[in-house]
C-alpha cells in the first residue's frame, strides 16, 4: 500500500514542467526515478525514519513571495549573501558586493550549462532518491567558484527561506568549487514557515591544498521535511570541515558523503536538538580512499519529548589507505523517558596500518558534573540546564563567524531552558 502512495508522491513531484537547463542531467535523474519508489521502513537505511506521512502529502507549485530577511542577516555577511525564497533566487534580498574579485558567486539560474561540474561530484557513489529528485526539478541555487590560492576573508551566506501556506516542495542546489590552495568559509542556512518539503543537494569539490569550512544550519519550520544530500570530494592535502546543526523540521535527514584523497582532512560534526515528535536522522559516509587522510566526527543529539534521533556513521578505509586516522564519536543525551536514539557506527577497514576509533554513548547527564556545579552554589535545575546547554554548545565553540556563534548559542539556550542563567557567551 505504501508503495502506491509513494509512487503518487514521486509522480506528483515530477508532474510539473521540467526546467529547461541541464536537460541531460535531469533526464538521467528522471529515468532513474521511474524505477524507484519512496523508501519504507523495510529498507535497512530507512528503518527508523518513517516517510509514511510524507508519502501521503501532495505538493503544489512554489509561489514567488517576498519575505522580510532583516532578522536573518549577520553583520559579517551582509555583503556576501545570496537569498533564495521558495526555491527562487531573491535578487533584492541578496547582496554580494563585499565578495572579493575573482570569486564567482551567483545563482545557479545565471550559470551556464558549461558549469559541467554540476552533477558530477561523487559520481562514484550511487545517487539517492532525493538527490535525483533535486536534480530533476531544482529551480535555482548557488554556484561558488574560488580560484587558485585565493583565501576569501569574509564568510559567504546562503539563505534558503521557504514560506508555505499549502504544502510546497523546494529543491535548493549548491555547487562549491575550490581550486588549489583556495580557502573559504561558507554558511548554509535553511529556515521557513508552514508545511513543505525541502530536498537540498550540495556538491563540493575541494582541490589540492584548499580549505572549506562549512556551517550548515537547519532551522526549518515545525511542519517541514528536510532531506538533504551532501557530496564532497577532497583533493590531496585539502580540508573540508563541516558542522551541521539541526534544530527544526518534523523530520530531517542529513546524508553527507565525503571522499578523501591522500593526506586530506575532514571533520563532520553534528548537533541535533529535538523535542516533541521530531525525527532527525544522519546517515554519513566517509571514504578514506587514499593513504594518510584523517577524519574527525563528533555527532551530538539532545532528545526530549517523544523525539527520535538516528545516527548511522559509516567509515570506509580503502585497501592501501595506510596511515588513515579516523575518529568518530556519537554522544546522545536523553531528556525524557519517551525520547529515543538509535546510533550505529559502521567501520569497514581494508587497510592494516590505520588508527580508527569510534564510540557511542546514550545517556543522561553525568552526576559528577552535576555535583561539581552544585558544589559551586547552583541549584539542581540550574546545574542540569547549564550542563544540557554545555553539551550542545560544545559543538558551537569553534564556529569562526562570531555573530553566528552567538545567535546559535542563544537558540540553544532557549531550547535548553538555560536562558534564565543569563549570558553564557
Amino acid at each position, binding site marked *: 500500500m505504501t508503495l502506491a502512495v509513494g509512487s503518487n508522491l514521486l509522480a506528483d513531484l515530477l508532474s510539473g514542467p521540467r526546467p529547461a537547463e541541464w536537460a541531460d542531467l535531469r533526464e538521467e535523474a528522471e529515468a532513474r526515478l521511474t524505477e524507484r519508489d519512496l523508501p519504507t521502513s523495510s529498507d535497512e537505511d530507512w528503518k527508523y525514519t518513517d516517510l509514511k506521512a510524507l508519502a501521503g502529502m501532495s505538493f503544489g507549485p512554489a509561489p514567488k513571495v517576498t519575505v522580510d530577511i532583516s532578522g536573518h542577516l549577520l553583520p559579517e555577511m551582509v555583503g556576501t549573501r545570496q537569498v533564495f525564497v521558495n526555491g527562487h533566487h531573491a535578487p533584492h534580498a541578496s547582496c554580494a558586493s563585499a565578495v572579493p574579485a575573482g570569486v564567482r558567486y551567483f545563482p545557479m539560474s545565471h550559470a551556464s550549462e558549461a558549469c559541467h561540474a554540476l552533477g558530477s561530484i561523487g559520481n562514484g557513489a550511487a545517487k539517492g532518491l532525493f538527490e535525483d529528485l533535486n536534480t530533476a526539478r531544482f529551480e535555482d541555487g548557488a554556484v561558488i567558484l574560488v580560484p587558485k590560492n585565493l583565501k576569501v576573508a569574509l564568510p559567504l551566506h546562503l539563505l534558503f527561506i521557504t514560506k508555505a501556506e499549502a504544502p510546497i516542495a523546494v529543491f535548493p542546489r549548491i555547487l562549491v568549487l575550490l581550486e588549489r590552495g583556495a580557502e573559504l568559509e561558507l554558511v548554509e542556512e535553511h529556515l521557513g514557515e508552514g508545511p513543505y518539503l525541502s530536498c537540498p543537494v550540495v556538491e563540493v569539490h575541494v582541490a589540492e591544498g584548499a580549505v572549506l569550512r562549512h556551517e550548515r544550519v537547519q532551522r526549518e519550520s515545525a511542519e517541514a521535511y528536510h532531506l538533504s544530500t551532501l557530496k564532497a570530494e577532497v583533493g590531496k592535502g585539502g580540508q573540508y570541515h563541516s558542522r551541521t546543526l539541526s534544530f527544526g523540521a518534523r523530520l530531517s535527514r542529513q546524508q553527507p558523503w565525503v571522499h578523501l584523497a591522500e593526506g586530506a582532512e575532514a571533520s563532520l560534526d553534528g548537533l541535533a536538538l529535538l523535542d516533541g515528535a521530531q525525527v532527525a536522522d544522519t546517515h554519513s559516509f566517509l571514504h578514506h580512499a587514499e593513504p594518510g587522510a584523517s577524519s574527525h566526527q563528533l555527532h551530538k543529539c539532545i532528545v526530549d519529548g517523544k523525539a527520535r534521533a538516528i545516527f548511522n556513521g559509516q567509515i570506509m578505509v580503502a585497501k592501501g589507505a595506510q596511515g588513515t586516522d579516523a575518529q568518530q564519536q556519537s554522544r546522545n543525551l536523553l531528556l525524557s523517558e519517551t525520547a529515543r536514539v538509535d546510533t550505529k557506527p559502521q567501520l569497514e577497514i581494508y587497510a592494516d596500518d590505520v588508527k580508527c576509533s569510534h564510540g557511542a554513548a546514550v545517556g543522561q547527564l553525568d552526576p559528577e558534573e552535576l555535583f561539581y556545579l*552544585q558544589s*559551586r552554589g*547552583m541549584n539542581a535545575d540550574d*546545574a542540569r540546564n547549564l550542563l544540557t546547554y554545555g553539551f550542545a554548545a560544545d559543538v558551537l565553540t569553534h564556529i569562526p563567524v562570531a555573530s553566528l556563534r552567538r545567535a546559535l548559542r542563544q537558540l540553544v539556550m532557549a531550547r535548553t531552558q538555560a536562558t534564565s542563567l543569563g*549570558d*553564557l557567551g
Partner: protein
Amino acid sequence: MLSIKNLTASINGTPVLKGIDLELKAGEIHAIMGPNGSGKSTLGKVLVGHPAYEVTGGEVLYEGRNLFELEPDARARAGIFMGFQHPIEVPGVSNAAFLRLAYNKKAEAEGRDELDPLEFDDFIHEKIKLVAMKEEFLDRSLNEGFSGGEKKRNEILQMAVLEPKLAILDELDSGLDIDALRVLGDAVNKLQRPDRALLIITHFPRILEIIEPQFVHVLSGGRILKSAGKELAIELEERGYDWVLEEAAAGSQR
C-alpha cells in the same frame, strides 16, 4: 564554625569513615594527612554533600546548623567550598560564564548585587591576577583539556571568586609545580581571614610551610588517630605513618 562528632559514612555499603571527631574554629587552619585510601577525600566530599556517600551516623554542625539538612548547593551558598583532588571537566560551558553564574548565585543568596558581564570582567581580572592565571583560560570551557596543575589553579580561582568561610582543599599541591604551589599557597593565605577556616588535605609538608596550619591530624582507616601541632607534618615526613598506627593500636588496647 564546624563541629564534627562521631561521623560515619559509607560508599556502596562499605564503611569508609568510622567515627570522625573534629572541631574547626574561625581563623584556624587544619591539615589532614594520612595514607592513601584512608578516607581524607571522603571526609571532604561528605562535608560538601557528594551524593555517592551515605552518612550513616554522627553529626556535623556548621555555624550551629545541622549541615546535613542543607543541599550541596545550599552549603556552597552558605560559604562552604571544596577544592577537589580531581576537578571535573564541563565542555561547552565557558569558564568565565560559569564563574559569573557561581558568583551571582552566591551574591543573590547573600542579598548582594549581582554583577553583569562587564562588571564581572573587572572583578575577575583582579582575581586571575591573584592566582596568576592567563586570561585565555577564562574563555575556555570549564576545566576542559586543562592540565592537572591548571585545574588546581582554576579551583583556587573559584575559591577567590566565592570567598568561602570554610574551604576544604583536597591535595591542592598534587600536580602543581614549585612556582605554582607558591603562587596558589600565597593566594590561599591572602584569602584567609579571622572569620574563615581552612582544612588542607595533603601528603606533603611543603604546602604546609606556605599555608601554615595550627593543627595537623592523621586520618587512617576512617579515624583520626592523632592530632598535634604543625611539627607533626615534619615528623610524618621523616618517619612515615606506621608509628602513628602502632601508637594508636597500643592506645586502644590499654
